[in-house]
């Protein structure tokens, strides 16, 4: 049986991979996917905590509930985010982050 730390390690590595992707990749859609990876890493931790902290002999439903909410919010976020990307592409004909520097101070 895998222990809690094993799951947390996998979760942390997934998060690190997502973070690295956000920093490295320039395609804003891929960056967005990496954000989803990071969210999922958090989800994995939550599910692991739920399983390893039983309440009344059963996995804690609160952790799973949180994951459920995260997935829902993430779905909404993806919808809005992708819509923003589409209109951004319409406006600028690019979705490469190093060409989107109008926030430069």
């Amino acid at each position, binding site marked *: 049986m895998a222990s809690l730390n094993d799951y947390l390690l996998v979760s942390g590595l997934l998060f690190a991979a997502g973070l690295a992707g956000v920093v490295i990749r320039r395609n*804003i859609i891929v960056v967005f996917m990496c954000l989803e990876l990071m969210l999922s890493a958090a989800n994995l931790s939550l599910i692991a905590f739920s399983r390893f902290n039983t309440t009344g002999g059963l996995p804690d439903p609160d952790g799973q509930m949180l994951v459920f909410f995260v997935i829902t919010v993430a779905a909404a976020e993806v919808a809005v985010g992708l819509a923003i990307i589409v209109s951004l592409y319409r406006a600028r004909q690019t979705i490469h*982050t190093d060409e*989107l520097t109008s926030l*430069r101070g």
Partner: protein
Amino acid sequence: MNQAWILLFLPLAVAAASLLLPRRTALVPWLATASAAATLVLSLHLVGSTGTASFDWASVGGLHLRVGILLDRLSTGMMVVVTGVGVLVHVFSLAYMRDDAAKARYFTCLQLFMFSMTGIVLASDFIMTFIFWELVGLSSYLLIGHWFEKTSAADAAKKAFLCNRVGDFGFLTGILLLWSITGTLAFSSMDVPTSVSASLVTASLLCIFCGAIGKSAQLPLHVWLPDAMEGPTPVSALIHAATMVAAGVYMLFRLQLSLGAEVFGGLAGDVIAWTGGLTALAAALMAVQQDDIKRVLAYSTLSQLGYMVMAVGLAAGEAGMFHLFTHAWFKALLFLGAGAVIHACHHEQDIWKLGGLMRRMPVTGATFLAGCAALIAVPFTSGFFSKELILDAARGHQPVLFWIAVAVAVLTPFYMTRLVIVAFFGGSRSDAASHAREVGPLMAVPLLVLAVPALIAGNRIAHGFAPAVPERAGEFHLNSLFWISVAALVAGSGAAILLYRGKSRDPLSIPLLRERFYIDRFYDRFIVRHLQDSAAAIVHFLDEWIINGLLVDGCSRAAASFGGLLRRMQSGHLQGHAFAFGLGVLLVIYFTVFF
């Protein structure tokens, strides 16, 4: 006592009210004149009363700064002079300044001056004297610079103020020295303990005398007074002839009363007397070669102030104050007369462009002659009695000073006769003079009123109003002194009549005197220019480097560079932000878990 407080604060209240009144109203001049008249009535009512009242204004340790009023013969008599001349000058100004745009400011300043001068006269405490001393300096500055659009007027105001500052520095030092000696600043309880060394007392007296040098325009700080003639002529009459410049003499005599005349016996007295005597002589010499009617009178004022200071230095303060009393009337009369002439001749002040005014302006001419007679000490005029007493005091103490004083007594009739002959007799030498007309009643009445005390103030009937009356005042003896002064008078005016009668150009030309012994030029070249240059350099340095460079530009540059630093962070690169964010997360974890 309440009347005294009203006397002190009424002009201040009027000045404050004048500031609040709308600028265009014609009310301010009349209000100020009414206030001056009210103060005259109060002063006359207070004559002869004595008393003192004061309250603590501030206390620092053992040093109590008190504001108070000291009523005695000296202060009440001086108040009569101040308010008497003051009200006549106010009335005269009503006409003289009728067409001035800044009339309201003028009268407000006049009231401020009346307040300050009253404060000096009534002060019961040396610190209060000093405060009002500075206030008269300020109002004098404001009034000299009344026509500040003229560069010369603005410069003259600055010069007067700065010269006074030089003297006042010594004055304040002297006051503090005196406080350390006597332990009090109140005039009524001042006493020099016998344990104090004489040199310390002398030092403090000389420091205080510095204040008088500045205010009463003695050598070597006399240079501001002739320039102060840039101010309106009634101001010259009130401030720069009758009252403020006499404040130095008044203050010295007040000190002499408090400390006792014997304190002035040593070195301090000698220095004061010699300064006064030399000023009297130098100013009289300079007056001989001046062409500006007001400047002649200004140097004459310097010379007469020198007489008074000399008298105080000779421990004969009563004689000095008596001369101050008489001088105030006739010199105010002369200045107002000059003002009337200037007014009638469209601001022509060069006596060589006047002439023949006696026929066209009989009232002005006659009163001017009366004032002139008093100044040159024609027997039985007011100046005759007071000058005689000073000469008498000088003869008793310092024979050299006596002969200097006699020389001044020769020079005074000389330059005054020159002035009268050139300006009032002969033919008119310019259009302005030939079209001059007699002035209106608002100007003529003050002249006529002033002519009375100018002639009789030395006689016994006026002694009740005098701030101080020496023992033999008003007496007349056919002694050697009388003959000396009559000889001086005849010599001086006779020489002037012979020399200037019927002349249209100055037959005498003495560059040394015309250029006023080159003192102004010397100051200008060696002190003012250097000071100005170094001050300008310092100011420039402060302005350019400290204020502009360090504070203003420094602040903006610091903000800009800091902003640039932050700006570098706002690269607009998403990745950069994400990286920073990731680092931040790492740091947060590090600090929460490992730290």
